[in-house]
């Protein structure tokens, strides 16, 4: 792919009409009148015509195409019993539909189609990359936004709320980016690292402070970043019968708090499991989206922890950047079809980091636990595999004394993710595809304690 901007029919004329202004990121949003190309003579003061958008100096024409759309979620029934569906459509300046996964730059019109047609919400909120871009009180649900000129993926989300402020439905759509420099990074190996002193995160370290050993060989640190690095998280909550009696409610409250702590560009999804997958939200930075469908969730059934962890890992694999699973469970698997040793292999390949908030059980090591699927030895082995997988991934195990600690422990995980370092290096030697590399990271300063993944699978 050449990577240069391609002209879009009609774009030049639009560009000529705009005042001179440049934006690097997504920004200003403007509600669009009902017919995007036929502006009404009079508009409310807060509504600006499409043509009044700030001028984007870089060519808008590079863009984008067709659409996509929707992730219908939660879909509570309407009064008539018909589910509510939102469909999100992006159009470029020329009015062409932009498909999901295609790159977007500059002004983009977001349209949210509603089914059943004519349905009115209390309000409809639109987000770009987790930041609220606008609120529409009444149909038509259209908004003009400026996505800027950075070659980056963008996530568009729409959340419909009822009159009482309850989230009713949501849709999301993700744009792509121009694939120009991806090849450069293929061999680059990333490493996410937590540095602690006296149990507290340490800031201000640079690449010169770290030494990375791949198979015992010192590597040159290529990059070292820190600060608010965005991440994608899968919150994996056990909703089996062992979570009855208020435990699930407390876990969900913790998940809400975690979602509320997400920063712009962070994304999370919620996965509830028992002996089956009970609920799955899309990746989102909007807490209300995570909460869709939670009402009425009750604990019950068996436990397929291993299978659910595998699913969470696979759901994260396609996400860019840091990927994290936060598992809330007592760690006792009963009905999974996948043994934890197989899941651990998948985890190694994915480089997903797992944090395990471990709920108390009467028999933590499984020494006296018998189920139809496993005897005590089987349960002990599975628990040990899970423990090893978590630590190998660079995550940690947080033992909870009481379920009420979930919220504070999840806040601790979120804070830790905010203070991590992202290191990268070019491995100096290849062991062959699919081979495991042992990694070791050290830091200057004896009192520093580091936690990072203990290896990676060569791709």
């Amino acid at each position, binding site marked *: 792919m050449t990577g240069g901007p391609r002209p879009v029919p009609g774009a030049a004329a639009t560009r000529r009409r705009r005042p001179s202004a440049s934006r690097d990121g997504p920004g200003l949003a403007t509600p669009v009148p009902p017919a995007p190309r036929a502006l009404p003579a009079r508009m409310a003061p807060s509504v600006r015509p499409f043509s009044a958008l700030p001028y984007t100096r870089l060519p808008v024409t590079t863009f984008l195409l067709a659409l996509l759309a929707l992730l219908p979620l939660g879909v509570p029934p309407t009064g008539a019993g018909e589910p509510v569906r939102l469909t999100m459509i992006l159009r470029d300046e020329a009015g062409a539909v932009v498909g999901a996964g295609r790159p977007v730059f500059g002004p983009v019109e977001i349209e949210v189609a509603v089914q059943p047609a004519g349905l009115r919400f209390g309000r409809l909120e639109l987000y770009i990359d987790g930041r609220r871009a606008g609120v529409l009180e009444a149909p038509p649900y259209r908004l003009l936004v400026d996505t800027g000129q950075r070659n980056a993926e963008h996530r568009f989300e729409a959340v419909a709320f009822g009159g009482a402020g309850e989230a009713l439905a949501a849709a999301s759509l993700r744009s792509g980016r121009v694939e120009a420099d991806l090849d450069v990074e293929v061999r680059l190996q990333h490493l996410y690292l937590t540095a602690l002193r006296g149990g507290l995160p340490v800031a201000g370290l640079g690449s010169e402070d770290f030494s990375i050993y791949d198979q015992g060989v010192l590597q040159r640190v290529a990059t070292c970043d820190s600060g608010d690095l965005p991440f994608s998280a899968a919150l994996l909550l056990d909703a089996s019968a062992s979570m009855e009696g208020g435990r699930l409610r407390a876990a969900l409250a913790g998940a809400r708090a975690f979602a509320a702590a997400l920063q712009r560009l962070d994304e999370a999804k919620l996965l509830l499991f028992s002996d*089956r997958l009970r609920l799955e939200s899309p990746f989102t930075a909007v807490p209300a989206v995570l909460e869709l469908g939670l009402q009425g969730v009750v604990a019950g059934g068996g436990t*397929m922890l291993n299978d659910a962890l595998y699913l969470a890992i696979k759901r994260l694999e396609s996400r860019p950047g840091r990927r994290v699973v936060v598992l809330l469970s007592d760690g006792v698997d009963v009905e999974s079809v996948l043994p934890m040793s197989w899941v651990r292999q998948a985890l190694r390949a994915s480089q997903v980091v797992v944090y395990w908030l471990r709920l108390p059980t009467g028999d933590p090591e499984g020494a006296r636990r018998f189920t*139809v699927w496993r005897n005590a030895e089987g349960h002990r082995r599975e628990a040990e595999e899970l423990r090893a997988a978590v630590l190998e991934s660079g995550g940690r195990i947080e033992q909870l004394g009481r379920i009420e600690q979930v919220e504070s422990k999840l806040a601790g995980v979120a804070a830790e993710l905010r203070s991590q370092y992202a290191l990268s290096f070019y491995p100096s030697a290849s062991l062959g595809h699919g081979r495991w590399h042992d990694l070791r990271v050290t830091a200057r300063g004896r009192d520093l304690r580091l936690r990072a993944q203990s290896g990676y699978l060569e791709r």
Partner: protein
Amino acid sequence: MSRKIDAREVRRRSRGVAVRLRCLVGALLPGIALTAVGVLGAPLGGAGGASGEPSALPAAPADAAAPAAAPPAASPPERPVLRLMRSGGLRVESAALLMSGQQGGAIDLAVLAVPWPAAAGKGRVDVMVEIDGRSLLAAAGPDPAPAPLRCEVAFYALSGQGILDASGADVVEIDLARARPALERTGVRLHEELRLPAGEASLRVLVRLPATRQVGLRVVPLMVPPAPSGAAAAMAGGAGLAGAAGATGASGGPVAEAPPRLLTPLFAGATSSAAADSRPAATWLEARLEGAEPGPGVPPPESAAGAAPPQGTAKATPPQGAANAAPPDTEQPAAFPVLFAGRETLFELPAAGLPSSGSEGIEASVELRPAGGAVLPGGGLAARLLGRRPPPSPHAAPGLELLAIAFTPPGTLAAGAYELQAVVRLLPATPAARAGQRELRSSSLPVLVAAAMLGENALLWPQVVRAPALGGMTAAAAGGAGSGTAGKEAAATPDTAADGSEPSEGNEGKQDAAPRTRLAGFQAAYRAILGDVAAGRESAAHLALGELEAALLRDGALDLSRLAAVEIRTIRTVAAQAPEALVPVLHLYALLYAESRRAARYQLSTHAREMTFGLADLYARESALPAARQLAARLMISFGGELAAAGGPGGFTTKAWRRAAAWDPDGEPALLCLALDAEWRGEYRQALAALRQLLSRHPESAEGRLRLAVNLVRLGQQEEAERELERVARVAAGWPAAVAYQELGRLRIGGGRLAAAEQALQEGLRRLPDDESLAFELALVLERRGRSAEAAAVLARLRAAAPEEESSRHLYTRLPAPLLGRVDGEIKAAIAERLPALAAALAAGQQAGSR
């Protein structure tokens, strides 16, 4: 004594509930050792638990009044006669006793719970506890130490779901040297205050002497009414009702819109020093924390005869400023009121939402029924509505008032235990009556009716129950344990017959020598219950049997082995007439087991379980029918299911299913259940043996073959396992097929045969596209084969399941529901066929007995 126990305290204490429950099992089931040692808080009586010796208590926070017992010394005594102290927690044993809900023990006590409408989530419940002094002295032993006698009093309030809503623990310290005369006459009385959410609850009160480990336990059911609509906010806001009361019921103003409701009748009990002055022989030793709020005051009984105003007069509407004041000479309500035949009695009745002031629009009456029996002939007793007043401030709520009611028990009424219920009829003109609610009934209250000749010096139940006219009954036997169930238990006990046996000293050892009359009465009651079974009233019969047995065990009249012996003796006479009659009787005990387990009555459930096993043996042995052993096997299969649900695999579950398999070696359900039980216990060879036996008789059993294959894998016999799995996958449908494909996949992935695994999994998913486990496995195989995009596509199709959808692997862990359902159907039909045989056998036994 009065103290508030709120949610924080419950939370703090609830950390020990799991430990307590484990201990309970250990304490009540023979052969299971207690392993837990800790409970929250300091144990009552300090470290003396193991030896039973009392130990130092925390410093006494308050003294208690003991007006009647204090000797007229010239100088004040160094210690009060009676002290009440709070305790930091409960012993394991006490907690276990409270959780068990089994009434009884050597210390006789009566408990009254007076619930008031809940507001801001919780309602106040006043609890009156009256401890019989003589039984307390007897329980303390013949020669108690010279140190003060320490008596623990613990309260547990459990919700309808069995959740601990409130609890409390106190210690009463009694200077026996000075209190003995008063204790001999009456006893000790306490007032406790709990806060409970609206709804049904079970209050359990335990009195325990740490020194001798003697106890008394009473259970009182109660219902905390919800606050009237519109009242909750006012009450939550702390409005004490000083203003609100003036605007409601008693003063005739508009009341909240809740339906009218009557609460618990309150009779006077003699506690105050003023009362003690006038009736010194009838006064409790009252233990109260200093500064504690008093319980609800009740006018003394004599005010009914003289001072009580006529209906609807000025006393119904107190003067301004005195709206919340109780009449100046009120007493605390009696836990177990004593009424005298032929003498008018006054009581107060808390009522909510009554429509008008004075006596206009309403009529009152009283119903008395022998404990557990029907209303007396002639129906309700006429009652006079003397007046209406708002309750004092701690109990006040919008629309809530106290009705003063007087009535006279008939002079011909036999002495004994009764249940009293107040009835208020709304005249047709009132709004509530127009809305269809014409008659209101109060909670049922146990009362004791004594002959008037007992006189003024015997006003309290400890005095009355020792009188010859009542045959020396205990408070529990007389119904004083509370209301409802307790009263019925008492009625079912032969104790209630005035058989002239010696008065109880609260000593269980003495009560073991149950008189022949008791046994005869019990056998008659037992035969009547079997008669109910024969008449098709099985549900009522098993409840009645539970109550009958509970009453006997509670009073120590029989222990478990003697109870079983007595019952088996009766059953044998039935079986001698018709062995088939054993089947409905056996099922009766199976039902009793399930019910007792659910109610956590472990003594009863142990007894019922052993009876079920024993009767199954007897039936299999005695019946001449060719299919008798098969039917006995069916009964054991079903009973094993109940045992598994209650206690999991192993133990008695295994015992039941092994018997079933022995009696019906060709039966599919028994062998399947036996195999599942063995799998659950990790005994894979045992499972394999049962499954091979099953498949030799039922080769078509898909579940049996699937389990066989799974266990073959576990035992390393992979090749045979794979053949069996392929066979199941080919012929079975539903979850067995799904699990067969999954296990084939696992077997092949584990062996590195990814292509073969993929083939099986693809085929499985084609047939069972909603099976998540197959999708997970297939994704993993595709990933390992380097086809990540296909793997992602497989997982992308996964959708969250509805709550009622169970995974195929979860169904594998379940008992074979369709087979067990079929077994239950067969049992039901077999019982119905045999009811006439039971009826005939009982009738024949009756005739033989009468000859």
